[in-house]
């Protein structure tokens, strides 16, 4: 079976597990139920030769229900085709089953999603924060988290404070003033 043939037959293979299917410029995406992710992932890896998990990412659809989405990017080394799986996760129960035993690389990806978006992965062997430190009280990539950050303090570990935005992430104003005076931090109080 060639790659395009496999992709064409996926709707049939996944059957009733498909909630939604999207084809866009040769990219195939399936939305499936969070409860089915382990079964589908195992099937993809063992029977459909998707032996490479490129990435797992998460999306915050703030204001919609279900709020979160976890996106799995799969690749088949033998057939050279991509496949995207998506599961939607509600804010009330922000948890997905882990796939770190199916693709070991998922271990750190899932830790990153836990760290940045605050989605738990049930069955993960080592679900610690990976970028921020243990005890940091926020999930920085959630939409309600301000870009400049929020103050926090973990004695002897780390502290944070809000960055001075002064109108944007970095807004310098064209003028003949010196760099020192055009610098955003110079314009307003810290």
């Amino acid at each position, binding site marked *: 079976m060639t790659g395009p043939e496999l992709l064409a037959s996926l709707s049939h293979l996944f059957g009733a597990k498909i909630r939604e299917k999207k084809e866009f410029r040769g990219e195939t995406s399936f939305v499936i139920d969070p409860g089915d992710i382990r079964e589908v992932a195992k099937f993809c890896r063992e029977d459909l030769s998707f032996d490479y998990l490129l990435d797992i990412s998460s999306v915050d659809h703030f204001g919609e229900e279900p709020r979160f989405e976890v996106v799995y990017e799969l690749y088949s080394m033998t057939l050279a085709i991509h496949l995207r799986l998506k599961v939607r996760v509600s804010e009330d129960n922000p948890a997905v089953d882990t796939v770190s035993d199916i693709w070991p690389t998922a271990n750190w990806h899932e830790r990153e999603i836990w760290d940045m978006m605050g989605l738990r992965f049930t069955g993960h062997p080592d679900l610690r924060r990976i*970028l*921020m430190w243990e005890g940091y009280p926020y999930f*920085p990539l959630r939409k309600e988290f301000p870009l*400049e950050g929020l103050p926090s303090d973990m004695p002897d570990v780390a*502290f944070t*404070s809000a*960055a001075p935005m002064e109108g944007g992430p970095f807004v310098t104003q064209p003028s003949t003033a010196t760099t020192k005076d055009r610098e*955003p931090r110079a314009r307003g109080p*810290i």
Partner: protein
Amino acid sequence: MPTSAESRPSTQTLPAAYDSKIEGNVIFTQLDAAMNWMRKNSLWPMPMGLACCAIELMATASARFDIARFGAEVMRFSPRQCDVMIVAGTVTYKMALAVKRIYDQMPEPKWVIAMGACASSGGMYRSYAVLQGIDQLLPVDVYISGCPPRPEALIAGLMKLQDKIAGERSFTSQKRGLVDKIESLV
């Protein structure tokens, strides 16, 4: 704190009385001037390389720019042997207390160069993750602008620091106890 030019340590040498045996081997100067001269010409940097500025720091140490011309080529990876911490790069909050800890481990006297926009002010990273300038944690002596600064800029910053060290009242301010003891004996 004396401010007039006369009270600053002088590097000017005075002629010794003629003696063919020691001629040329004796220099009269002030203790501060001698200490400062030794310190400023053998600054051992702590290379706190945290981002792309560290690449320019390495280039500064290498043959073309050759920071050894200013006596600062001995990059030590142990803070116990360092005089000047060159904070080269983005200081994240996760790294901030580690930088502070390394600074605390450096023996006195010690200086800090904030190299580049990130170390000086957070640079383009107005974000939850980045400390907005290492001067919030450490006493910075020299700020170097640039993103990243060229090696010439780092060398200029180092020379600024040398000028600052040359003007310090090293003996009287840093060896206060010894000065008091001498004064009580005299």
